[in-house]
């Protein structure tokens, strides 16, 4: 889910590459393997998984609960996703270089001004327009903290950071219907329990007009399921090197269909 809550990110808050960070020993013997890591034991993980799941349903605007739910339940799916990334050449490069989609001020490499100046119809321009339309910033994403393996934590972080780009590629807004479509797409691509439950339970809360557009022949649900299963993994796409590419070509390359226009 996209969030509009600012989360403070200090410099040095980023997921470091292993040689930069000295693992910390915490009280009670846990080892912190990356900055912001919060090691959990089995009982805590189960407690947080159940508790955050309940909180997601009771208070869906609480993005920290959504993040916590995704991180505590995603171990298996992240491992599978990491293996898929390793099998792909560009995915392997992403895992080695660990690029972060953050603005320059936030410690990353995205220059929003430069993206806004790109030609109309390019990926970067579409992304900048999306951020401006909803007032988001890539720095708003929370940093992963409950995943123990630093590489899997990076995969989770990468997934979280390309969520907005998935919105752009699928041509969906951040209204409930758009979020459900993107969640279905991500559920197929990543297999994360958070995406699956979010897509399914979110679709139960659609308004009648949205539900019609969702369920009809050639509607959004069909589009999401088709695209989700056919498309290549967006997490393997090196967005930071391809801002200038036309959006239509990127979609073709990733085998993402043009979204239906049902307005």
């Amino acid at each position, binding site marked *: 889910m996209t969030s509009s*809550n*600012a989360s403070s990110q200090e410099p040095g808050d980023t997921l470091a590459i292993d040689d930069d960070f000295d693992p910390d020993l915490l009280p*009670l013997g846990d080892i912190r393997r990356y900055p912001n890591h919060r090691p959990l034991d089995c*009982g805590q993980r189960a*407690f947080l998984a159940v508790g955050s799941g309940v909180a997601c349903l009771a208070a869906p605007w*609480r993005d*920290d609960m959504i993040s916590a739910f995704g991180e505590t339940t995603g171990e298996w799916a992240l491992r599978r996703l990491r293996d898929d990334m390793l099998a792909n050449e560009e995915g392997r490069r992403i895992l080695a270089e660990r690029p972060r989609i953050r603005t320059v001020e936030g410690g990353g490499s995205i220059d929003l001004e430069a993206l806004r100046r790109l030609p109309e119809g390019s990926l970067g321009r579409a992304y900048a327009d999306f951020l401006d339309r909803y007032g988001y910033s890539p720095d708003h994403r929370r940093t992963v903290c409950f995943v123990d393996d630093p590489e899997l934590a990076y995969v989770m972080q990468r997934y979280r950071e390309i969520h907005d780009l998935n919105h752009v590629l699928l041509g969906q807004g951040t209204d409930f219907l758009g979020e459900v479509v993107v969640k279905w797409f991500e559920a197929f691509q990543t297999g994360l329990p958070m995406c699956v439950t979010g897509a399914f339970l979110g679709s139960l809360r659609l308004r009648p007009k949205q539900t019609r557009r969702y369920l009809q022949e050639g509607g959004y649900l069909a589009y999401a399921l088709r695209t989700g299963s056919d498309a290549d993994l967006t997490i393997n796409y090196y967005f930071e090197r391809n801002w200038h590419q036309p959006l239509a070509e990127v979609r073709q390359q990733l085998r993402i269909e043009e979204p239906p226009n049902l307005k």
Partner: protein
Amino acid sequence: FIPKMQCRQLLRCISRSPATSSSSCFGVARRQVHQPGGFDTSFGFEEVEPGQKQDRVNQVFNPVSNSYDVMNDLMSAGLHRCWKRRFVASANPRPGWRVVDVAGGTGDIALGLLEWSRKLPGRAPPPVRVAPGDGSVDSFREAAERQTAAAEAEAPASCTVSVVDPSPSMMQVGSAKASAKGSTFASSIQWLEGRAESLPLDEASSDLYTIAFGMRNCTDLPGVLREAHRVLKPYGRFACLEFCSVENPLLSILYDEYSFRVIPPMGLLVAGDWDSYEYLVESIRRFPHQTLFANMMREAGFSAVNYEVLWPGVCCIHSGYKLPSV
């Protein structure tokens, strides 16, 4: 079994927006912060400059003020109410006393003190002076009743409490609670923003000084104790309720596991803040042992210093008296 009202309050807390993460930043770095010329003070298990600690404490308490009471109930399974009731009983404020309650932002102790003092009989009315009249028993009785009623009307109904707290948002929660209880309560409490090391009160102005679960957040313990000594009247009483070192080894193991494993995730779910509650359990561990704290009180000038450990052994009440200087 949690009663219905507490369930509702709990759900309300979960549904609130999470704390803005100005408080989450200090979970990240566990580095020694050394600056030339300054000494380090402990902030949980992170060493910070004394000047920084108060800001950090404020950062902890300002966002969590709304869910503070609910979290207290959850963390102690309601036991904190029993401890606070016992604390108020042992402090025993009489009507007419001026009490200073430090770090009492959400008003639990202040309201408890007021209720306790209201239930006590007031001071005995002064002896009846009857003007020479006809000398009959009835006229004497009437005059006595009139004078007693007048004296009782003047006698204070309860003590007055000055709550001193560095966090305005905690005090807002407290004054809302006091107004909900009624104007008699709200009018007997004064809410002052300030720190325990420098109280905005005059010397020898209070009969009783109370601090409940606030001492571990203070930067300079000897300074706080000296300040407490300053504002107390001669024969005034100092009372401090605080978590203590657990003596029983089995309880200690269970307590550590519970504190470090369960409380921070619970804080994340209910208050949206893992770091503040991790800070809380760490600051408890860094507080001096109860005997050491009693010695610190003696050094600050308190007499008849004693401590009483409350069931199940995780917190205790320290008390001492200020004797008039010879």
